[in-house]
């Protein structure tokens, strides 16, 4: 039994008016089953609109699926009393893509990182401050940053703050929803390194959701490829990335640009098998 188990999850959205006119049905997630073992980083790749982010929200307990079950630490996430759910949430955290909107602009960094601590632990303000500073140090920020507001920080620094908040309760699983996609290349690598280091330090598991196969490849141990609401391919050994078979996975693979300019630049494009999807 894994840490997190998804059993045939289904989620459909209805767009447009329900009484007048046509209703547009969007099957965001259809019949997804996934297992995530403890200590593993599972990469979930797919194009935008493939249902990755919806799936992320479902397993955070933010969006109830139409069908299927989410089992986390052996408990069904959508069949719990409020108190039990709160206890379970402790072990399930998130880092969003948009680091700017993920922090309340009216709170100081100290208050932002302390928020989960205040919900679960009874600390004196001195203890709390000490703990927050400890986490600031872990994610590579200065101790003085505790009194600053979010607008003083760059995207990469804000993402570090978000990570500090996510690890504050020492959770078991963190959902990283495109956590590095909006950052500069250099900062991306720094954040990915930080995440890898934290994973060892706190024995975390990650679900790394991204459209960028390079970032996923850098950090993930296993891979699942999503397309139009379904998981179309799985890979348990990242070393065998080249052996992906499904056309969608191949398309993702071929979209990774080679790191150096070569004699026949853009040649890959011409040779690329045109996959009509």
């Amino acid at each position, binding site marked *: 039994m894994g840490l997190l188990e998804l059993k045939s999850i289904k989620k459909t959205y209805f767009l447009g008016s329900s009484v007048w006119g046509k209703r547009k049905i969007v099957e965001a997630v259809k019949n997804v089953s996934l297992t995530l073992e403890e200590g593993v980083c599972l990469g979930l790749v797919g194009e935008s609109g493939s249902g990755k982010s919806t799936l992320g929200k479902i397993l955070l307990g*933010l969006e109830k699926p139409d069908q299927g079950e989410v089992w986390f630490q052996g408990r069904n996430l959508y069949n719990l009393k409020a108190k039990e759910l*709160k206890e379970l*949430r402790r072990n399930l955290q*998130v880092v*969003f893509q948009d680091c700017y*909107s*993920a922090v309340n602009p*009216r*709170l100081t960094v100290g208050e932002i990182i302390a928020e989960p601590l205040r919900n*679960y632990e009874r600390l004196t303000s001195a203890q709390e401050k000490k703990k927050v500073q400890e986490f600031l140090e872990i994610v590579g920020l200065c101790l003085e940053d505790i009194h600053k507001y979010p607008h003083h920080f760059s995207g990469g620094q804000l993402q570090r703050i978000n990570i500090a908040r996510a690890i504050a309760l020492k959770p078991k699983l963190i959902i990283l929803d495109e956590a590095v996609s909006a950052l500069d290349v250099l900062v991306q690598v720094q954040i990915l390194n930080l995440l890898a280091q934290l994973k060892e330090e706190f024995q975390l598991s990650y679900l790394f959701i991204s459209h960028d196969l390079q970032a996923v490849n850098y950090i993930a141990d296993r891979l699942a490829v999503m397309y139009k609401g379904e998981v179309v391919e799985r890979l348990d050994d990242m070393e065998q990335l080249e052996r992906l078979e499904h056309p969608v996975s191949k398309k993702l693979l071929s979209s990774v640009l080679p790191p150096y300019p070569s004699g026949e630049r853009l040649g890959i494009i011409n040779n690329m098998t045109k996959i009509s999807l």
Partner: protein
Amino acid sequence: MLKNVKRQLLSHKLMMISSMIVFFMTLLALLAPFFAPNDPNLVDITHKLQGPSSKFPLGTDHLGRDILSRLIYGTRTSLGTAFLVMGLTMMISIPLGIYAGFRGGWGDYLFMRICDILMAFPSFLLSLALIGILGPGLVNLILAMVLVQWVFYARVIRGMVLSVKEQNFVLAAKVCGTSRLVIVIKHILPAIISQVAVLVFMDIGGVVLAISGLSFLGLGIQPPGAEWGMMINDSKQFFRNAPSLMLYPGMMILIVVVAFNLFGEALRDALDLRRE
């Protein structure tokens, strides 16, 4: 570039003037007995319809009452009532708007349908009808206005909550295990409160106008209390002999409405809600 600077200066000037008027009016309302030279309700038929004099700086009305004093006391009635109406409205609208927006579900559905029904009627007519049922008087006027207004504000606040609720920091707070009540108090309320304040100040002029209108029709403050709308009503028969009797309260209404409106706009610019 130049245009920009000019606009900013202009808006600063307007802001200065409007906030000064707002401040002065509030002061006038709070310290009416101190500012007023005479008793506003003292009837003295022997001095009726007099022109300006040292004892009565703006003259007297048809019952010989001092107009300036009545105007000053009228500020107290009009502004006081308007703030009371707005305050009571917000006490209903803020919790209900937040509840409907944040919780959603059937409560929200029910709320929206009530809104649809109440907002189908023109609000002034609706308050007229309500006063008609309740009977004229200050308390009933306040009650009627609050009962009609709250729907509109609750709906606007619901909209604000809906947009804040989808922000990632609210989702992140949920994931952190923060309870709904704490999310509302710590994340949602601070995010909308400045917008609500702007709304209140921009609309308070309208409330003053509505109160004066209802009083003009004899449905609000009852004689002998001083109120601008009622003063206009009282003086309309003497329009030919003493037009200034109508002019003064009319001017007061105009100044208050415009000043509060500009103040609201200046407040919005100062808080820079659009850039947020």
